[in-house]
C-alpha cells in the first residue's frame, strides 16, 4: 500500500502542470534547507563552547532556559509554513483502502517533514558534545529523547490546531508578552519552565513521560482526522459568509464606476489580490533605505528618484503589472459582454492612479527627511501616473499567466511574468526616469532634474488618448492568445 502512495506522490510532483517553476522553487527551497542545516550544525557544535566562553553558566542549563521559546517559535513557524497534506487524499476516499491507512499515511508524511528532522542538526551534535564534555550518558540520552519527543509533539499540535486562527494568535500573543516581560525583567517564565527541562536530564526516565505525551497527541490527531475524513468536515475548504455590497457612491462614474466597484470587490475578497495590495503598502517604506543613508550604495542623488518611483508606485508594480490576469478566471465573459476595451482599460488605469495618489499622500512622512525627499516622491508619482501607468498596462497584454485568486501560491514572483517583452518594458519604467533626472541634475541643477522628470510625466499624461488607442490595439491583437492561455489552469 505504501508503495502505491509513494508512486502517487512521485507522479503528482513530476507531472504537475507547473512542474518547471515548481522545480525551480523546490531547488531554491533545497538550498534554503541546506543553509539552515549548516547553521544548525554549526550552532549544535559551537553552542556549547560559545556559551561556556561567554560565561553564561552551564551550557545545558542555558539551553534549557530558552527551550520554551525555541519550542513556541518552532510551533509558530510550523503553523505558518507546514501544511497538513489533505488535498491529495480526496480521490482515495472511496477506494478500497482503510481510512485508518490513509490517515496514518498523511500523518506519517508530516512526521518525516523537514520541520521535524531539521532540529536534529542542532540537538544531535549538541548532545554529542555534552557526552564528550563528561555529562552523565544516561542523563544526556534521556534529555535528548525527551526533547525529540517534544518537537514531534509540536508536529501533532500543529496538525490539530491547523486553521484555528484565534487559538493560535492568542497563544502567540501570550508568548510575545512573556518575552517582553522577560526582557524588561518584570516576570520570567523561564524560571518556571527551565526546572522541567532540567529534570529531563536529572531524571532520565522522564523521557517516557514525554513519549507518552507524544503517543497521546498522535493518537488524538489520528482519531480526530479519522472522524473528520468527510468532505463536509475535515476536508472541506473554508467558506466565507458573503455580503452583497453596493458601493453606490461609485455610480456617478457611470460605466467606469461599474468596473471600479468590481475591482474593489476583487481586491477585498480574494486572498491573492489582498496579498498584493498589502505588499504594495510596504513599498511605501522602501524609501527609508535611501533617505536614512542606511545603504551606502543608494547615496547618490539619482537614487532618490528611484526611491520616489517605488514609494508611490507599489500598487502599480504589484497589482498593475498583472492586469488583465486578475480577470483571467472570467476573461471570456469580459470579452463577450457589452464592454469596450477602452472602458475596461480606463477603469484599471484609474485604479492605479487613485492608488498612486493615495500612496503619495501616505508617504508624506518623508517630509521628516526634508522637502527634498518628499519632492522626489511627488515627482516619482507624477512619472508613475504619466508614464508608468501606461507601461504596466501595455506589459500586461503580454503576460498570459492565469491567476488563481483563491490561493497565495506564486504571489511572490512568477517566472512567466518575466518574459523578454515585459523585461524590456521595465527599462523605461525605472531606468529612463533616472536618466532624465541625471540629465537635469548634472547639466543644470537638482531642481532642474526634478522638473525634467515631472515634465516627462505631464507630457505622458497629455498623450493619454493616443497611448490608450495604441494599447487597445495590442490588447485586441493578443486577445485570442490570452483567452487560450487563461484556459490552461496553472
Amino acid at each position, binding site marked *: 500500500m505504501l508503495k502505491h502512495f509513494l508512486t502517487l506522490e512521485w507522479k503528482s510532483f513530476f507531472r504537475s502542470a507547473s512542474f518547471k517553476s515548481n522545480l525551480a522553487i523546490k531547488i531554491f527551497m533545497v538550498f534554503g534547507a541546506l543553509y539552515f542545516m549548516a547553521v544548525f550544525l554549526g550552532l549544535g557544535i559551537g553552542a556549547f563552547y560559545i556559551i561556556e566562553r561567554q560565561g553564561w553558566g552551564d551550557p545545558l542549563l542555558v539551553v534549557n532556559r530558552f527551550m520554551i521559546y525555541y519550542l513556541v517559535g518552532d510551533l509558530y513557524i510550523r503553523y505558518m509554513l507546514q501544511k497538513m497534506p489533505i488535498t491529495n487524499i480526496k480521490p482515495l476516499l472511496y477506494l478500497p483502502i482503510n481510512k485508518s491507512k490513509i490517515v496514518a499515511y498523511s500523518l506519517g508524511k508530516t512526521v518525516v517533514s523537514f520541520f521535524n528532522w531539521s532540529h536534529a542538526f542542532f540537538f544531535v551534535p549538541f548532545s554529542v558534545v555534552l557526552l564528550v564534555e563528561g555529562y552523565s550518558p544516561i542523563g544526556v540520552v534521556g534529555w535528548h529523547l525527551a526533547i525529540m519527543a517534544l518537537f514531534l509533539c509540536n508536529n501533532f499540535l500543529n496538525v490539530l490546531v491547523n486553521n484555528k486562527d484565534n487559538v493560535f494568535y492568542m497563544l502567540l500573543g501570550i508568548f510575545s508578552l512573556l518575552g517582553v516581560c522577560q526582557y524588561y525583567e518584570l516576570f520570567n517564565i523561564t524560571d518556571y519552565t527551565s526546572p522541567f527541562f532540567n529534570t529531563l536530564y536529572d531524571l532520565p526516565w522522564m523521557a517516557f513521560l514525554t513519549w507518552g505525551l507524544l503517543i497521546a497527541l498522535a493518537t488524538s490527531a489520528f482519531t480526530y482526522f479519522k472522524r473528520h475524513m468527510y468532505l463536509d468536515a475535515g476536508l472541506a475548504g473554508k467558506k466565507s459568509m458573503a455580503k*452583497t455590497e453596493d458601493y453606490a457612491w461609485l455610480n456617478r462614474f457611470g460605466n467606469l464606476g461599474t468596473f471600479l466597484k468590481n475591482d474593489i*470587490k476583487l481586491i477585498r475578497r480574494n486572498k491573492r489580490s489582498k496579498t498584493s495590495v498589502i505588499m504594495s503598502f510596504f513599498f511605501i517604506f522602501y524609501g527609508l533605505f535611501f533617505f536614512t543613508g542606511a545603504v551606502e550604495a543608494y547615496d547618490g542623488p539619482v537614487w532618490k528618484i528611484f526611491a520616489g518611483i517605488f514609494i508611490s508606485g507599489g500598487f502599480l508594480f504589484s497589482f498593475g503589472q498583472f492586469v488583465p490576469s486578475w480577470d483571467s*478566471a*472570467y476573461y471570456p465573459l469580459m470579452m463577450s*459582454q*457589452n*464592454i469596450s*476595451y477602452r472602458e475596461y482599460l480606463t477603469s484599471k488605469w484609474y485604479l492605479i492612479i487613485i492608488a498612486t495618489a493615495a500612496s503619495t499622500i501616505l508617504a508624506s512622512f518623508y517630509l521628516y527627511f526634508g522637502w527634498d525627499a518628499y519632492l522626489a516622491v511627488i515627482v516619482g508619482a507624477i512619472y508613475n501616473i504619466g508614464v508608468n501607468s501606461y507601461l504596466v498596462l501595455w506589459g500586461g497584454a503580454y503576460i498570459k499567466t492565469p491567476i488563481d485568486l483563491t490561493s497565495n501560491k506564486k504571489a511572490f514572483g512568477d517566472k512567466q511574468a518575466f518574459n523578454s517583452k515585459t523585461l524590456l518594458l521595465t527599462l523605461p519604467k525605472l531606468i529612463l526616469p533616472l536618466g532624465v533626472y541625471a540629465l537635469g541634475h548634472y547639466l543644470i541643477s537638482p531642481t532642474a532634474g526634478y522638473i525634467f522628470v515631472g515634465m516627462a510625466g505631464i507630457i505622458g499624461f497629455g498623450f493619454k488618448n493616443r497611448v490608450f488607442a495604441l494599447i487597445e490595439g495590442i490588447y485586441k491583437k493578443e486577445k485570442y492568445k490570452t483567452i487560450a492561455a487563461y484556459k490552461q489552469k496553472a
Partner: protein
Amino acid sequence: MISVQSLTKKYGESIVLNIENLEIPKGQSFGLVGNNGAGKTTFFSLMLDLIQPTTGHIVNNGVQVDSSEEWKPFTSAFIDETFLIGYLTPEEYFYFIGELRGRNKADVDALLERFKDFFHDEILGQKKYLRDLSKGNQKKAGIVASFIGDPEVIILDEPFANLDPTTQIKLKGIIKDLAASNEVTVLVSSHDLIHVTEVCERIVVLNKGELVRDIQTSTETLKELEVFFGG
C-alpha cells in the same frame, strides 16, 4: 439574423469545424446537437469572437463578429463557468451585468422576480459567493444573467446539463417562451435529444465539425435523430 459563410477552424492539421453555409433567421430557436468533439462549443466560441476562424466569418445582425465589437450590445451568452465572476454574490453579478447592459437595479430586480420560481430559493439571498454555489446553481445564475438587458441573440451551451429535473422542465418553458416572442434568437446546444427537440424549431446536427443534418422540428424529428446517433 446570423449568417455563416465558409467557416472553418483548424488546429494544426485537424479540422474541428467546417460549415459552408448556415443562415439563422431572427426569432428562430436553433438547436445544435452532436457528440463530444463535434464542434458545438467551437462554433459558439466563434460566434462570441473568443477564438479566431481559420477561414470565413460569422455575421451577426449585419456585424461581422471578428472585425467589429458592435454585436456585443444585443448578444449574450452562457458557455461555462468562465462566464461567472466567482467572488461576487449572485445579486452583485446580476447587477454588474445589468449595468454593463444599461439596466438599473430596479430593472434587474424586476427581471429576477420573473425567475423566482426558476431559482427555487437557492440563488438569491444565500450569503454565498458564486464560487461557493453548487455547479447546478451556478448554471442557473449564469443562464438567467444571459437574459438581462433584452438581448436579441442568446447563446446557451449545454444549458440542461447539471440541472435537476424540475429546473430542466422550467428551463424548457423559459426557452419556449423566448422563442415564441419571435424577437429573440436562441441558440442552444445539447446532448439530450429529447430536450432539444422539444424546445427548438430547427435542429442542426454536427459530426466531426461537419454539418450533417438540418431539420425543421416535427413529430418525426426525435426518431430521426435517434436513428442517426444510434446507427
